[in-house]
């Protein structure tokens, strides 16, 4: 996932990036999350990627009923500019990309990089796996595989071909 998140982390002003599922489970994260969310009861205890992802997913879910009042679908891009930092969320059907910015940074600077990151993510998801793990059970076509290349030698003769 580094190839998806690294370009975003190189944008000036980006503190951290979290990639998660739409229901709030983090997949990957980069940057300094502890700095971003240091407002914890104990010093040094940041919320972490899972909490950030969960909170943002919960927030988006809670917006659903409010948006439904005016028949608006869930937004694809949300920018929450706050006193300490800015939170940019880009939502796709199967992923949630969250970026946290420093106070002076512009959310507009992240528009294209985030689109690019999501496009890269889709490409990564579509890419065929080069080394698939072995299946637990042999498949139906397993006789065609290299492990059964001698299987053809053991084809039984049909009954009408039987001698005698």
């Amino acid at each position, binding site marked *: 996932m580094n190839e998806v998140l690294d370009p975003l982390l190189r944008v000036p002003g980006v503190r951290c990036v979290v990639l998660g599922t739409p229901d709030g489970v983090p997949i990957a994260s980069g940057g300094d999350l502890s700095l*971003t*969310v*240091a*407002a*914890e*009861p104990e*010093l040094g205890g940041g*919320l972490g990627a899972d909490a*950030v992802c969960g*909170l*943002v997913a*919960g*927030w988006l879910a*809670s*917006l659903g*009923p*409010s*948006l439904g*009042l*005016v*028949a*608006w*679908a*869930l*937004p*694809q*891009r*949300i*920018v*929450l*500019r*706050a*006193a*300490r*930092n*800015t*939170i940019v969320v880009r939502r796709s059907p199967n992923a949630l990309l969250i970026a*946290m910015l420093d106070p002076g940074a512009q*959310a507009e600077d992240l528009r294209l990089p985030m689109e690019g990151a999501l496009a890269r993510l889709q490409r990564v998801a579509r890419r065929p796996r080069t080394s698939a793990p072995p299946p637990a059970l042999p498949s139906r076509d397993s006789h065609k595989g290299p492990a059964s290349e001698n299987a053809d030698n053991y084809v039984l003769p049909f009954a009408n071909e039987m001698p005698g």
Partner: protein
Amino acid sequence: MSFFERLLAKPRLRSVRQRLAEEPSAKNYLALAQEHARLGQLEHVQRVCEEALALYPGHAEVARLLERSRALVGEGRTRALTRELREAPRPGLYRELAELLLSMGRIERAEEVAVEWFAHNGDGHAQLLRAQARYQRFLVDRRREDGKLVQELCDAAEKLLPRDERPLRLRLELCSAIGAWRDARKAVSQLLEGAPGDAALESRFRTLNALAENAPRIDAALREVERSGKLATEARARRPAPSTAAPRSIRPLLQQLASGPNVQAAIYECGSTALVQGAKGATAERTARAVREIVNKSRATARRLGAGAPLSVELEGDFGSVMIAPDDTGSAALWTTRPALTAAQRQALLELVGAGVDAQAPSEETA
């Protein structure tokens, strides 16, 4: 600065001083302060700026220079104290450093120093300073967790400093800020035990006694502050009177926003009143309610994420784009069918909410 540069600067400094003596204008004061700043004489800069501000209060350039020089002096002292602490830590140094950082607004660093100080010798003053730092953070972020921690730290400080009234004062401040009047009354009564007959405290006790009837407990009050983003004092001081600073009516501004291309609705909300331009009837009502709910939910999320008070929320989707700018007094929102708002529209919306407009004007549509 080299010796020659210093030598060359002397006649320049003398001439600026003479100019100031002949004509004590803000411009000449500023020139002298800048000359001192160039020589690295920060104490002189502060003295000249303070003198100038006494004559020309509110002069922005002089005030900025004074602030900058104070910050530089503070930075220098912070570095020296940090170095001393590294070599030979002692409580006096910890206290000075933490207080200095707190006065400079570096709350997180001040709290770190207080934690280090407490770990060093378990001093009650360290807990008190940490409570003060955390209280400052609570005022900024309005998070329930911060408020609870202030309360716990005050408890700890009270145990360690039984005769010190400062933890009780801080608790009183917290409880008064969040509207936990019963707990505030308790803190005042404890303070009165230490200073019986104090007229100010007795008067405050009587006021709190009147307020404490149906007041929430501290946990409930903290939860309410986190939800609404408003302190009890702010909620009471919410202005019903028109602003004198910007005596404009809101309707022309909203109409101007709504007349833009592709604009579906322009909304301003203040309390339970919403002024909507563009959308009509039930649609206006629903849109205003949606905006209010989005603001409330975003406010709570921003606080939980440690991002502080929200300044704006932008949503982009199939419906177009919506920008909401919440404020202490109200929220302004703009809905367009374009994929994103223009910079001018953003600016206009922020000006609308920040202008302190008179929201008491009659509404087009009330939701």
